[in-house]
Structure formats: C-alpha cells, structure tokens
C-alpha cells in the first residue's frame, strides 16, 4: 500500500526546505563573492551547490510520488557522503570568509551550515512530523544512528556559530541534536515534538540551555541572575502550556541550577556529564 500522500508530501517538503536554503544561499553567494572580490571562495561554493543538487536528486528519487515507504535507512546511507561534503566545505568557507573580513558572507554561510544540520537531523532523527491532523500514518521515526539512545539534545543559544559548533560536535558523538535560537523557539520545538511523539515517549529531552538566550530572558538581570530568570521563565511558560513536553521542562527546572552551568567554550566531556 502506498504511503499516505499527504504524509509523503509533507516529508518531501521537510527535506527539500533545508535543501532549498543550501542551494539558494550557495547560488546567491556565488553571485556575491564575484562582486565582492572574493572569487577564491567560488570553487568551494560551486562544490556545495553541486553536492546539494546531488542530495536533491537522491531525496526526489527516494520520496517520489509512488514510493511505498520512506526508506530512511537508504536515505541516510545515500545522503551521507554529499551531506558531509557540504558541511565540511561550508566550515572551510566560513573560516575563509571570516579571515577575509567578509562578515555578511560568513553570516550567510552560517545559514547554509544551519540548513545542512537541519537536513541531517531530519534524516538521522526521523523528525519529519506528520501533519497535525493525521495520526498513525507513515511513522517516520528511526533510532539515532549513534545508538546512544540518550534522546534529543536541544541546544538553545542565540549565537548561531556557538549553536552550530556545539551541535556538530555532539552529533559526531552520536547524539541527535536540535537547535533553537531563543527560549521561545525552544519551547515551540518541544511542543512540536510532544505532538509527534506523545504516544511513544522514546526519547528524553535534555536541555543545553544557554541561559542568556533572548526573548524569555530578563532584560535587566545580570548574567548570573538572568540565567536563573531565563530558566524560571521557561519553566513558568512550560507549566502554563500544559502539554507533556512542556511539563517536562518544568520538571527539569530543578536541574537548571548554577552547579549545572557550563562555561563557554564548552568542554564536551563536561557537557556530556551534564546530560546524563
């Protein structure tokens, strides 16, 4: 029996959206670097665009309209090389752009990196959500590739570079990682997950709170007290919302104490201890 068409369309949408960002930004950057006399970045950007188009072909092929199921195992295997190539090349380009003082280009490359991480996370974590109105069709979850079964680590940090750097390092350790740029975004991400997985709580949400993340932070507080303030605000919002994942945030409020704060730059081993 064919996969539910709506679920399949949604899956394609979820996978193609980050690819749209990778291809679009790399094409735009190719135009920009020529104009900005940064032509040395051109070959790397062309490589990113080439790899991204290859990824698009793979995704189109494996999620075509007549697909009987979304084969995440095959998808994961086939995208591994081009996706890793995109990530490696973007890292290299970002360093080169920063060294050249091309801040805008580096910022756009951060976006490409973020899109690549989102794509990897979607494929590895099977986080592609079904439409909210659908239940029990096309369950797309797969266990984390690293097999650590430690759940999803949510990194909440308003600084894109910090967020992505820590995310990538944790992913290399075999964790599933989700990124959020603000407290609000973190809560939204957790709520979405609770909708998808309410019936099968197979994972544990672990919070890597950047306690100065914006939106929910107290604007007047000092660094230390804003940490507590952010955590309290997040917990209050979570409790008020009433959904299971948000209650989990509230339940973990006690864990967010100063003894759990990890200084930046994070020491990975220290971060791991904070998780378990």
């Amino acid at each position, binding site marked *: 029996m064919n996969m539910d*068409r709506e679920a*399949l*369309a*949604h899956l*394609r*949408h979820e996978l*193609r*959206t980050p*690819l*749209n*960002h990778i*291809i*679009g*930004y790399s*094409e*735009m950057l190719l*135009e920009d670097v020529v104009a900005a006399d940064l032509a040395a970045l051109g070959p790397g950007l062309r490589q990113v665009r080439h790899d991204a188009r290859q990824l*698009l072909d793979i995704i*189109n092929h494996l999620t075509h*309209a007549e697909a009987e199921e979304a084969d995440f195992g095959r998808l994961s295997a086939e995208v591994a090389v081009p996706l890793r190539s995109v990530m490696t090349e973007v890292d290299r380009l970002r360093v080169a752009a920063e060294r050249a003082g091309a801040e805008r280009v580096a910022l756009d490359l951060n*976006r490409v990196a973020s*899109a690549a991480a989102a794509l990897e996370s979607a494929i590895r974590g099977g986080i592609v959500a079904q439409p909210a109105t659908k239940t029990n069709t096309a369950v797309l979850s797969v266990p984390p590739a690293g097999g650590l079964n430690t759940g999803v680590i949510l990194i909440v940090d308003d600084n894109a570079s910090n967020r992505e750097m820590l995310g990538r390092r944790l992913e290399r350790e075999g964790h599933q990682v989700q990124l959020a740029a603000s407290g609000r975004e973190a809560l939204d991400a957790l709520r979405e997950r609770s909708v998808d997985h309410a019936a099968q709580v197979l994972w544990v949400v672990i919070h890597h709170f950047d306690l100065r993340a914006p939106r929910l932070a107290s604007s007047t507080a000092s660094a230390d007290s804003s940490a507590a303030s952010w955590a309290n605000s997040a917990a209050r919002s979570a409790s008020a919302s009433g959904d299971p994942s948000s209650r989990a945030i509230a339940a973990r409020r006690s864990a967010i104490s100063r003894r759990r704060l990890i200084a930046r730059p994070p020491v990975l081993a220290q971060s791991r201890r904070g998780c378990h």
Partner: protein
Amino acid sequence: MIKILLVEDNEMNRDMLSRRLQKQGYEVLLALDGEEGVAKAHSDLPALILMDMSLPGVDGWEATRRLKAAAKTQNIPIIALTAHAMTDDRDKALAAGCDDFDTKPVELPRLLAKIQALLARQAS
C-alpha cells in the same frame, strides 16, 4: 520599480529570495502569512505575487482564492511556490487561481522567466 509581493513564512526563504529579486531590480514587499499577504496585496497593489502555499493560518490556496475573488486584486498574477513538488500540486495551485507554479528549491533563471512572462502578459 516593479513591486513584487513575496508571501513566505520561512525566514531563510524570504531573506534569500527577496535579496535575489532585489538584485534583479525588483522592489520586494514581504508578508509572513496568507492573511498578511491578502492585506498587503490590497494596500500596495503589487505587480505580481509569489505565494508560498504552505502557510500558517490562511494558507496559500485560500489566500489566492480570496485575492482572485476580489475585484481590486483579481488581475494581479500569482505564482505559487511549493517545496512539496508532487504532481498534483500544480493542478491544485492552478485550481485555486494561481497563474503559474514553481517548485522550491527555486531555480532563479526559471522563476525570473515566469515572472517576466506574466508581467509582459499583464502589460499587453
């Protein structure tokens, strides 16, 4: 300067496409959802609308239907944009009243050709 209204909820898509269109000499107006898109189309009367179809609240299909039902906006060409890329997406978009359809990832030369064709048709 020719005004194009881009209705798109995804921040990166909005940023990327608006910057690329601006480089082509278009003035780009932005709306984040269907409701805002309909309102901006009425207030700013753009020459063309690029409509993402998967929008929160009032989606692209409904926004298109509303725009095509209103005398003030019914002649504004609308190009549907979607990342679903399923075979019937095009039919659904055209049935809602869109004048053309394109898929994401956007291929800029192809999209520009569609924009120019619709603007030329509008002018004639």
